[in-house]
């Protein structure tokens, strides 16, 4: 056990080094892309002012922003600032980027976590049901639903849910993370959850059918294996077989799949948050992109890379804890 603990720390350190170098590469690449893009931050800023700006004023803004320095110099300037925890100031919100990310991340994390849990749990359960009744009517119906869901774009499902549950039935609010016209300190947890349900459900539908279909196939393989045949001949009933052999064997692949969906989840949150006017990182990144807010865009890119890497690292560490097989083979 002691051995395993040291191993875990070892793996943790090795992963951290990998992660740092990856982040450095991401920072370089994203900065390069932004520099090469035709985005003119000063022009966008002036456009945003929606007012007359004299050329003299424009020159002063350019000077102040340092846009005329060479790109390499700008990169190292930016990188040293970032390493000191200074991500710069957002042009569109006129606030420090770190502050915006911190505030938005809590909203996004709640959303992604809910969606992740919903899609994981329901996807897995439905996958088991489909695998159990392989090619019989419950499977046939559920399989069709899964196919339909996985071929529908997330934003469309989102709009559909919004129309049905928000506009027609009026069961859920049509957007935001809290009720309109209520002070932050007066917003209860219940209200926050109430606002979270529809976007989280939309987001979960994105990765949900993948898990379900994957689990279905895996379970079918397991149920047709020799050891299950042996268990059957021994007279174990189907439910016991499912519990003892089925679920145990399919849970690990499902976990792998679920943990590797972090990046996808992040991508999906951009869409879900925009459809439901939900103030998270996803809607912030699309606003930053559309309005050429470079410091915010770069800040969120770095942060999301960090987030996805951390997710994958947790998955790596978890395998060793969940599956004694992997642990022992490595040792």
């Amino acid at each position: 056990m002691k051995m395993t603990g040291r191993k875990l720390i070892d793996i943790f350190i090795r992963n951290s080094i990998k992660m740092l170098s990856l982040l450095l590469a991401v920072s370089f690449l994203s900065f390069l892309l932004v520099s090469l893009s035709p985005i003119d931050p000063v022009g966008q800023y002036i456009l945003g002012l929606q007012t007359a700006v004299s050329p003299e004023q424009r020159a002063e803004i350019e000077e102040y922003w340092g846009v005329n320095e060479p790109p390499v110099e700008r990169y190292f300037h930016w990188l040293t600032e970032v390493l000191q925890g200074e991500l710069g100031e957002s042009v569109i919100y006129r606030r420090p980027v770190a502050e915006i990310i911190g505030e938005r991340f809590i909203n996004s994390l709640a959303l992604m976590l809910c969606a992740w849990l919903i899609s994981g749990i329901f996807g897995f359960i439905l996958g088991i049901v489909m695998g159990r009744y392989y090619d019989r009517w419950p499977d046939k119906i559920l399989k069709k639903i899964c196919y339909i869901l996985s071929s529908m774009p997330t934003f469309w499902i989102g709009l559909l849910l919004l129309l049905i549950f928000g506009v027609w039935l009026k069961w859920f609010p049509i957007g935001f993370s809290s009720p309109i016209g209520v002070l932050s300190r007066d917003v209860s947890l219940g209200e926050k959850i109430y606002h979270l349900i529809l976007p989280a459900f939309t987001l979960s539908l994105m990765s949900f059918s993948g898990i379900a279909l994957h689990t279905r196939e895996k379970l079918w393989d397991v149920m047709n294996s020799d050891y299950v045949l042996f268990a059957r001949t021994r007279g174990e009933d189907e439910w016991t077989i499912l519990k003892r052999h089925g679920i145990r064997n399919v849970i690990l692949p499902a976990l792998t799949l679920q943990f590797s969906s972090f990046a996808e989840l992040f991508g999906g949150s951009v869409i879900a948050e925009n459809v439901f006017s939900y103030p998270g990182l996803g809607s912030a990144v699309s606003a930053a992109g559309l309005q050429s807010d470079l410091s915010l865009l770069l800040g969120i890119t770095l942060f999301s890379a960090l987030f996805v890497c951390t997710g994958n690292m947790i998955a790596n560490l978890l395998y060793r804890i969940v599956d004694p097989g992997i642990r022992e083979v490595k040792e």
Partner: protein
Amino acid sequence: MKTNKILRLLLLFIMGIYLVACKQEEQAVQEKDSVVIAIGTEPETLDPTQGWGHGNSPIVQSTLVRYNSDLTFENDLATSYELSTDGLTWTFHLREDAKFTDGKRVTASDVVFTLETAKKAQGAVDLTYMESAVAKDDSTVIITLSQPTSIFLNTLASVGIVPKHAYSEEYGRNPIGSGPYKFVEWKSQEQIMFTANEDYYEGEPAIKNVTVVFMSEDAALAAVLAGEVDVAYSSATLGNTKAEGYRVERIASADNRGFTLPMLPEEGKTTESGAPIGNNVTCHREIRQAIAYAIDRQLIADTVLNGFGRPAYSENDGMPWNNPEVKIETDLEYAKKLLLDGGWLDSDQDGIVEKDGITAEFKCVYPAGDSVRQAIGMAVSEQLKKIGIKLTIEGMSWDEIMKVMFSEAVLMGWGSAIPNETYYLYRSEGALLDDFYNPEGYQNLKTDKYLRAAMEALTVEEANENWKKVQWDNNTGTSMKGECPWVWVVNLDHVTYVRDGLSIGEQPIHGHGHGLPLIQNLKDWKWQ
């Protein structure tokens, strides 16, 4: 059994949440002194020295003078003002009963502080011509300018006075002022809440609680259909949707769409940043004017904008400084005659006219993603076929547009509540700069003379007289009758959903903007 229990608990939980939410909704219906307004863009700051309230009223703060609904000036914080005969020294007398919401009086030193801060900020407020501002006593401010400036009152009507004693870096996110409303809370990308200022010197406004939420136009329409907001900014494409319990108000605007036509011939020259200059088709005045006369503006307003628009003839239709003479009638025969007189003939029978081996075709670019501009461009292109001019429409990003705008037509939009926009659009020094104002390269000494006279005029009347002459002086001008550097097509109505029973007052003509102009007269709104 166990699963049943869990299920029951879950159901109870969901119902609990639902009940709480429903209760809140009922309360909102009972008290009719609050409004929820959905607009498109979130302001960046609530600090007037950084640009908040520019072109509109700042709500939280009050200004020295303000606009009437017909865009003339009336006193706000000022009780009277005088201008010296040389046009350089303004003296403002302040009212004595105006207080910031922290109870302190608004004094001359606050005005001085505001103007100096705004000048230093280099932001949206252009005060480069202000030499000094001095507080003579608590209620007298003397402002000295380096040159007579007729738009000074317009600028003052935009700059809300901030408290010197309570101003810091954070002011823009948590302002206090002396306006009709008090700032309560700002949730980024969600909402800003205001409440009525009970000590406002003109009396507490009728609407007590105001929540401004930020939504895209689609989301705002969904919110209207779900009954979650009282007022929603919408667009011409969505305005035909019927929503029960709401009416659609079309607010006239000078939020115009039109296109620039490069006026210089292509001679291989480039701008400082390397973009090509000139177009061999649009450099001919008869081509530009033929286009202007061939367009059926009413038809475009009716079809492309679903009737939520009006024909546009200049950058400032309907404003007090607009010359009504700029209006032209659609006249296909006249357009054809212009081309014929200019020597443009369709000799090869392909439907497009030529002259000296140059075919009358050119590109018109628009910001990709702006469906209204795209549709306007397509409609214009279709109409121009009738006179033998071929227009190709192409979507680009703003950054790409900046590289082609000196040699191709560009579909743009302007419209401001301050007349100096005209100055930036047409002055000779502004030609061919990277700032979108004058990419067509319009340079005219006569126009420059009128522009300077308008900017330096001592009275609003004198200024307006000269602004009008810029457009048309019975001989030439920037209008489509004159040199025609721009072909204006339509003014967009600002389509707004309003809940039945709510009056949003008499709205002045709106400038360019996504909903913020709507709330400038918030103090006049009421439930009936």
